[in-house]
């Protein structure tokens, strides 16, 4: 993947009036995102990222950098934040103790509230709150278990889940989404 001639693509200049310097504080105030301000963009995270090596469309340094710069719309509406495989390699490598993966998860939390989320994850969350399992259980699964001498799939505490998500407000967020990406 090494290239000798660097082909630099010129992009449209960023308008500073469109930047929101408060965006990073929104993250710094969350539990998962609180370490974001320590980043000095050395690139150690991207240098070890297994997704970055396949697609230059994804770079953890870019996500954090754009957030620190205040490019709120691009980061929240963008696809990049959903491409993190959450392997935590970047977090272990960062010399500034930035919890890179956790910061990306915190950004996802904010994006979700703004109406942007990966369809697949919404689906998964719905499965979970409705059945208690991350994937809807089927009859064939139980048949297979029976053939192996295992007990049928245990009941999950769906009622408790419903109560919890009501208390956290998650139910409203999950079921009101129309603008999904």
């Amino acid at each position: 993947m090494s290239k000798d001639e660097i082909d630099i693509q010129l992009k449209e200049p960023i308008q500073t009036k469109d930047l929101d310097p408060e965006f990073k504080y929104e993250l710094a105030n969350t539990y998962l995102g609180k370490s974001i301000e320590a980043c000095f963009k050395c690139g150690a995270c991207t240098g070890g990222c297994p997704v970055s090596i396949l697609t230059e469309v994804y770079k953890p340094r870019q996500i954090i950098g754009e957030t620190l710069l205040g490019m709120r719309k691009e980061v929240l509406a963008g696809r990049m934040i959903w491409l993190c495989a959450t392997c935590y390699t970047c977090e272990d490598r960062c010399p500034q103790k930035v919890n890179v993966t956790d910061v990306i998860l915190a950004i996802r939390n904010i994006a979700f509230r703004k109406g942007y989320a990966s369809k697949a994850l919404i689906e998964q969350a719905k499965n979970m709150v409705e059945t208690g399992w991350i994937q809807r259980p089927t009859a064939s699964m139980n048949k297979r278990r029976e053939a192996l001498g295992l007990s049928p799939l245990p009941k999950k505490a769906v009622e408790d889940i419903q109560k919890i998500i009501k208390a956290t407000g998650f139910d409203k967020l999950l079921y009101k989404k129309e603008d999904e990406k």
Partner: protein
Amino acid sequence: MKEFALFSGCLIPTRVPSYDVSLRKTAEKLNVHFREMENTTCCAPVGVLSLDYLTSLSLGARNLAIVEEMGLDTMCTPCNGCFEGLDRIASILSKDQETLRQVNEILAEVGKEYKATVKVRHLAEIYFDDVGIDKIKEMMVKPLDLRVGIRPGCHLFRPIEVIGIDYSERYFFLDDLINATGAESVYYKHRLRCCGGLLRNVSETVTEAMLRDRLIELKEAEVDCVVTVCPLCFLQFDLGQKLVERKYKEQYNIPSFTYSELLGLGMGLSAKELGLKTHRIKIDKIIEKIS
């Protein structure tokens, strides 16, 4: 040996029942005592954490509270995702009083309270620390003559700040577990690197490209099979391998096992008993090799 609360998670009972069977049958033989947890929920892993931190925390804490209700202090889980997620939640709640209070307010709605006393351990740790390499060697009916590529998965060791198990590129404790069965744990390139499991459904292209690279690395290392300690990793290398083969029109022929299944084979249990027929990639040549 003490009793552990067994938290099997979602994927094992529904999609990898062979892991379910194997871990129970081998536990019996190794004298490891598991107690079933009842009324649990999904551990609410990364997928839910991406959407709402507090919900993920609360659901996880509820499961930990059940362990306390059972009168036990250690939860054992055979899944990396459940392991990292619940270990992190237990860690946060044992250090941050304010968050614990917040979570307990939510748990009060379902009549539960978490007192932050539970320790979360992975099944592989139990095999290594509590059962021990010597005991495992003893239990081998005959040593397995296999070249194994072990995949620890992303969440067995990372993030190191939360989990705290020492590891390096060249050696980690799973190597010893493999070697104890008589098989050879082959060192191969990038064995600590992610295979893209959690990106399935989010981006098939990326998942499959990542998985393909990992399969190529395994093929180059000329292993007989790949062994994992997590159902998601297992599914990637079993069902996922078939999908990659179809997409890229390449053959790898690397059967995939979970460690408990390998252990079971070493102890003399049959492929049928361990439910290995449910694997998508045929394991016949492995069974032949070890008999």
